[in-house]
């Protein structure tokens, strides 16, 4: 019976749809879980309860209800807007976010797409959404959206550098850019024992900025720019942008866990559940940062990226390279 | 300085130009329209007066006498109040501005100009402040009636002022 299943799965044309389905299911469940977690965690940190009605038990079906609400809304495109660009912007932002889920190693042999340059493909995919943001901002024909979009573009480009440099330090340490191999070469405690812990913090901060999450959410500062590049979006398109944000949190958390925390490895019983636990823990920290911090002003944000994070990550690269060449074990 | 000492000081400085009056602890000096600027400058710059804090500037409808304008300033180092009052004619009444002495007078003069119809010479921007641009008339003058029962009378007890 199991042999029959194995033979079937050896066939590429059977395996591929199974993988696609698995990634899609993951993509549709984990971000919603993190979204629900955000509602509840933020609420309790603010001395209130959060969703309690939808789904009888403590509002578990709140996001499902939100999804249904978004789907049945009218599709409004402003008259002065550039129709095609406006309509395609959510897709350009969302599709790369889904694709990233295909490269993450979920277990010993559970990588949907295995590639020698998996790390750089994931980083490249996560930066395609900048184009989606710019498309949304420009085509909305709205001064507030435009200002939000310009701020977003500047911020996202600035924080790409520390992100990639910190990831490169890990690739150097592991000796490979293949995500599965990077996890293989780590102990269950990951790489955070040693100089790469700095890399973890740099990567985490840069990832927060890439996701435009507080304290880096100046582009969508709702007390200033209404909602930045998303001001004119309603209905399903808006829902896609929100989904991109939560999917981004999950995928960046997963990449960070894979690079620095040992991925699916644990002290006992390795498997995808460890990755899930690490992803949820990191998402909790992201939500915690949102509840706590006011937002950084745009120029403070840029100063932080260029004058603090970039030199630190360059120094980290030097240190890791040095240790690697002289074969000092980490 | 308390109100009486202040009054004596001002009478000594300005003589006949001022008519002082101390009511309920506040000194009010009434001056002629032409002395308005001079007294205001003395209030701000006179070392014993040093009224650097701007409280308000408002108009009071004095009916047959004209429109009264009251300026109230306060001195933070000396802790005394001073009210300067003058009366301008109802039609075409105007005064020199004091917004270069106290920046806060800028908005107060705009408000008095639109509500009472008093001009202020030398004011940088005497546009309407609280009222809509198309508004006609000077609402706080006594001949401008509150519109409620004018437009359409309705039954019931009248308000105390009607």
């Amino acid at each position, binding site marked *: 019976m199991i042999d029959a299943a194995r033979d079937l799965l050896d066939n590429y044309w059977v395996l591929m749809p199974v993988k696609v389905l698995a990634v899609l299911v993951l993509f549709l469940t984990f971000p919603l879980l993190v979204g629900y977690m955000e509602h509840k965690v933020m609420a309790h940190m603010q001395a209130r309860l959060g969703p309690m009605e939808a789904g009888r038990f403590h509002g578990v079906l709140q996001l499902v209800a939100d999804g249904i609400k978004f789907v049945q809304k009218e599709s409004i495109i402003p008259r002065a807007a550039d129709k095609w660009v406006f309509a395609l912007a959510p897709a350009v932002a969302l599709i790369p976010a889904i694709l990233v889920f295909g490269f993450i190693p979920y277990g010993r042999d559970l990588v949907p797409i295995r590639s020698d340059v998996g790390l750089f493909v994931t980083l490249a995919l996560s930066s395609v959404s900048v184009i989606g943001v710019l498309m949304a901002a420009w085509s909305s024909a709205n001064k507030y959206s435009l200002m939000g979009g310009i701020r977003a573009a500047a911020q996202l480009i600035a924080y790409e550098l520390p992100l990639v440099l910190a990831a490169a330090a890990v690739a150097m340490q592991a000796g490979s850019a293949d995500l599965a191999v990077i996890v293989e070469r780590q102990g269950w405690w990951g790489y955070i024992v040693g100089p790469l812990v700095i890399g973890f913090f740099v990567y985490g901060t840069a990832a927060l900025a890439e996701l435009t999450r507080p304290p880096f959410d100046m582009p969508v500062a709702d*007390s200033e720019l209404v909602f930045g590049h998303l001001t004119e979006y309603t209905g399903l398109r808006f829902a896609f942008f929100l989904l991109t944000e939560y999917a981004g949190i999950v995928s960046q958390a997963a990449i960070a866990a894979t690079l620095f925390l040992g991925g699916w490895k644990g002290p006992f019983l390795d498997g995808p559940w460890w990755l899930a636990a690490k992803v949820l823990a990191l998402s909790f920290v992201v939500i915690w940062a949102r509840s706590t911090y006011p937002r950084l*002003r*745009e120029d403070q944000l840029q100063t932080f990226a260029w004058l603090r994070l970039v030199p630190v990550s360059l120094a980290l690269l030097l240190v890791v390279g040095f240790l690697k060449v002289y074969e000092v074990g980490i | 300085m308390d109100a009486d000492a202040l009054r004596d000081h001002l009478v000594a400085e300005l003589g006949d130009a001022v008519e002082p009056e101390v009511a309920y602890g506040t000194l009010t000096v009434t001056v002629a329209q032409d002395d308005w600027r001079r007294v205001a400058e003395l209030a701000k710059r006179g070392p014993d007066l040093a009224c650097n804090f701007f409280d308000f500037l408002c108009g009071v409808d004095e009916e047959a006498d004209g429109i009264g304008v009251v300026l109230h300033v306060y001195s933070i180092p000396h802790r005394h109040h001073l*009210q300067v009052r003058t009366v301008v004619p109802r039609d075409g009444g105007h005064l020199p501005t004091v917004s270069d002495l106290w920046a806060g007078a800028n908005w107060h003069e705009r408000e008095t100009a639109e509500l009472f119809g008093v001009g202020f010479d030398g004011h940088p921007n005497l546009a309407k*402040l*609280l009222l809509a641009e198309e508004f006609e008339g000077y609402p706080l003058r006594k001949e401008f009636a509150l519109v409620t029962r004018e437009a359409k009378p309705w039954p019931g007890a009248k308000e105390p*002022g009607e």
Partner: protein
Amino acid sequence: MATELGQGGVAFQAADGTGVGIIVRDKADRELHTQDMTLNVGPQHPATHGVLRVLVTLDGEVIEDAQPVIGYMHRSFEKLAEYRDYRQIIALVNRHDWVSSICNELGVAMVVERQMDLEVPERATWIRMLMAEWTRVLNHLMFVGSYPLELGAITPMFYAFREREEIQALMEWITGGRLHLTYCRVGGLKQDLPRGAIQMSRDLVPRMRERLKEYEDLVLGNEIFAARTKGIGVLPADVACSYGVSGALLQAAGVPEDSRKTEPYLFYDQVEFDVPTGRNGDCYDRYATLIARIRESLRIIEQVNERIPPGPVNVKLPKVVRAPQGHAYVRTEAPLGQLSYYMVSHNEKTPWRFKMRTPSFNNVSSLPYLLKGTLLPDMIAVMGSMFFIVGDIDR
């Protein structure tokens, strides 16, 4: 802050010393043609509390000029006051600063009593002080919560409103209202305190004090909050006095001017409290002064709780209350600043002229001075730190 370089270029530096940029201006001999953008902030905008509109001329992200446009909430209180008797005017002025209603009413009652030479019973005066200080705490808590919200910190708002709910429960018990209390009357108060109200007031004070520490740790101690507010929107003391800016804004500029101390009314000269002052007059100092003022108010409340004597709370008034011919002036320290009333009476049921000098009117008139040369995100920080209520500006 912008400084002109040669050949029409301008270097600008953000107020806290970070960020230097060069902007090429719209000059005829330059090849790059730029134009100033006029942005309308409000009247419907999440950052402005209520219907305040600011016409901002922008050069990139630097504000060249900012003109507040007010009057969207003008309800002609001064004209109405000429047609209403004194009890009705008390109900009317509740609506200036609708977050702290007693403090508005107090001035009206005081100016009429002053002109009529009415003696207010001691118990009424002490209770008026108690209510005024609790409403001051209510008002300050509102801004303690909403200012971080404008900068992006969403949590202090909920904590501040949790505190406000507890105080409003006390207010509702005593007066029957949560927002517009109409509790003062000419000659005293509407009714006496219910039994147990003082005890509830006593219990609330230590709870509020302990929660104030949370705000200091969570907000004042936050590096990002400090980076966003230190050195931003500096209002020097002499400019503030010239504009007539008062209250926490003036105290943050370093001037310890507080009507309760310099010209004590009610029984403020019989209780001990300090007037906190800031050093720089920037947004951070204004916020810190607000929290310090709440502390001082709690100190006053503690003392007043123990000193309320038994007795009547109002005097017998004639059937028709008339203020004699003449004019009177009263100034009180409302939570937002100095609130003065100037009343001219011709011995009638209604006043001849009732001037209401509200604090936010003068505070907001200093916005053009403060906003010139700042960056757009700093505009939100500065406007929020003005602590104004639009009803107070427009009356």
